[in-house]
């Protein structure tokens, strides 16, 4: 044990104690540094093995139809992964499984190396640090933009804390920061239901950011956006990459070209191909699926 190692360990212990006091899990996407001989506190995501999400041999069928068929997929911390595939390939079902909405018939889903996601409910999975944007923008229409973001804020989510909740300075700053990021600063007091389609998409992304998730699942985030809005969304995702891990399902190829490093093609509930967009587009099997030869 060298003095700096001791020092480092002491700092880490302090940080963890602080986090535990706040009742929150660690909120960094994690580094690849292996930390030997350490214990991972309950609820903290262990990404020491370089993977934040593992799906292995996952299958689910609805009335005999195999929506997901022995799907295996993993995502690295800080990675931005695009998922493409024809309609009915199982993209949304896969997100349903990760977020606890659908239970798979078989297979394992792990968040980091230690958290078995199949044992948690939707709100618990959200609290662990997985945020999800739906295909159809889902915001709280009758509440204002401000109230939408405030509800999504990462804090205690029980009844009693909610009754006594007051937005404190630090949280206000966080809210302002997100408002700035999603370009809705001038609409703080507007009713969310009155926003345009693209703005609702952004508000929903903003709500995800308020949750400070480690992993963001985004189902068609630029559907219905103008070219300019799409461009800005691409910029946003590129700034998020590294700090968060992102899984983006999209059909817009030019959007994918702007943001992607690695693309996974799903077909019939399983991975068909994986690689850069160019590699994938040159793949015979992918061409066949898309063009239906």
């Amino acid at each position, binding site marked *: 044990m060298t003095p700096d190692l001791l020092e480092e360990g002491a700092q880490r212990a302090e940080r963890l104690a602080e986090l535990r006091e706040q009742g929150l899990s660690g909120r960094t996407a994690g580094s690849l540094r292996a930390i030997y001989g350490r214990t991972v506190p309950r609820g903290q995501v262990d990404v020491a093995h370089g993977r934040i999400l593992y799906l292995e041999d996952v299958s689910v069928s609805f009335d005999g139809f195999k929506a997901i068929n022995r799907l295996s997929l993993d995502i690295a911390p800080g990675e931005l992964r695009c998922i493409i595939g024809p309609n009915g390939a199982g993209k949304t079902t896969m997100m349903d499984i990760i977020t606890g909405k659908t239970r798979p018939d078989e297979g394992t889903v792990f968040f980091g190396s230690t958290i078995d996601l199949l044992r948690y409910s*939707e709100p618990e999975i959200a609290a662990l640090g997985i945020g999800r944007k739906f295909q159809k923008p889902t915001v709280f229409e009758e509440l204002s933009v401000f109230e939408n973001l405030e509800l999504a804020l990462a804090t205690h989510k029980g009844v009693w804390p909610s009754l006594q909740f007051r937005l404190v300075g630090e949280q206000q700053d966080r809210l302002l920061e997100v408002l700035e990021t999603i370009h809705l600063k001038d609409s703080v007091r507007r009713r969310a239901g009155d926003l345009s389609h693209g703005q609702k998409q952004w508000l929903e992304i903003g709500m995800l950011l308020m949750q400070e998730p480690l992993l963001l699942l985004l189902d068609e985030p630029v559907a219905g956006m103008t070219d300019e809005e799409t461009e800005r969304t691409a910029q946003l995702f590129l700034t998020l990459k590294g700090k968060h891990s992102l899984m983006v399902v999209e059909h817009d190829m030019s959007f994918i070209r702007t943001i992607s490093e690695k693309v996974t093609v799903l077909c019939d509930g399983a991975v068909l191909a994986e690689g850069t967009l160019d590699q994938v587009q040159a793949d015979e099997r992918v061409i066949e699926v898309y063009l239906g030869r």
Partner: protein
Amino acid sequence: MNTTALPTPVATDLLPQKGPLLTRKGWSGVFVALILLGVMAPVLNLLLPAGHPLHLSDYWVGLLGKIMCYAICALAMDLIWGYTGILSLGHGLFFALGGYVMGMYLMRQIGTDGVYKSELPDFMVFLAWKELPWHWALSHSFVATLLLVVLVPGLVAFVFGYFAFRSRIKGVYFSIITQALTFAAMLLFFRNETGFGGNNGFTDFKRILGMPLATQEMRMALFVLTGLVLVGFYLWARWLVGSKFGRVLQAIRDAETRVMFCGYNPLPYKLTIWVVSAVMCGVAGALYVPQVGIINPGEMSPANSIEIAIWAAVGGRASLIGPIVGAFLVNLAKSVLTVTFPEFWLYFLGGLFIVVTLFMPQGVVGVVRSWRASGWKMPWSQRPATDTEARP
């Protein structure tokens, strides 16, 4: 976390701040209501002679007292239906449970002055019962009665709500089950052997806390008490819906899946507001029984519970004052119409519900609000600019 000193004034300027419980205008409204209830009504009823033009007759004291109990139910309905989007068609059950708890206390207060001169209530003597059934063991104590008025409806609501919400029963299915629940309870209470007084229920009360019930002063005291409880519950409800808790409820109403993916478990939220709502109804029932002088299983009939929903709808859901206004309007209309055209009342009620649902989804309060937003113009003079009102 690093706290680099950001210019906080910007934050406070830009972000809406948490508002006070009520606006200055709102507090004046509450103040006026308290003066009317606590000073004006007693003076006009007790001190002015019966022939005086401003005299408040006993008939009106009784009627308004009763309607204020209904208004509490409508307020409770609004919390669960208007704010949380869960339509209960079984709130009459909680009202009746509170009423029965208070009713049995009043029965015990009769003492040996009943027809059969027995310590036991008359209906039990009539059924040749020798002792009180176990579930009425605490009914002699006023303090226990007050506690049970809150606990019994609260516990029934908690148990029912826990299983219903945990099974994620929603929408019309939930409404039907609550309707069935109150119907089943009504059948149970109708039976003589269950010890709830059968179809006659409890009546012929004489005293409360040892004081005679049928005096003008006691009626006035109950009237004022009901009014204070109504105002108190209104303020409580305002506090609930003004907190983040209240906004989570509205969020559950608008997009429950999104609420879950934000990390909230909807179950404790729904359960809390469900129990609060049931308790409010129970208290309303307990205030109702000594004023009306009778409680019977008819209060649990499905139609009664549906009426509560109609009051809330007519007044305007998702505004707290709306249901109170609705309860007053509908019940005043009822007391007039059931006298003048008794056979048409139910048709009128049904028609009212259809008209309100089709043409006034925000209720009376919604109409007044959009009227105010248009600068108090007559509806026919603002035809060209209807976009403030015509929100689908």
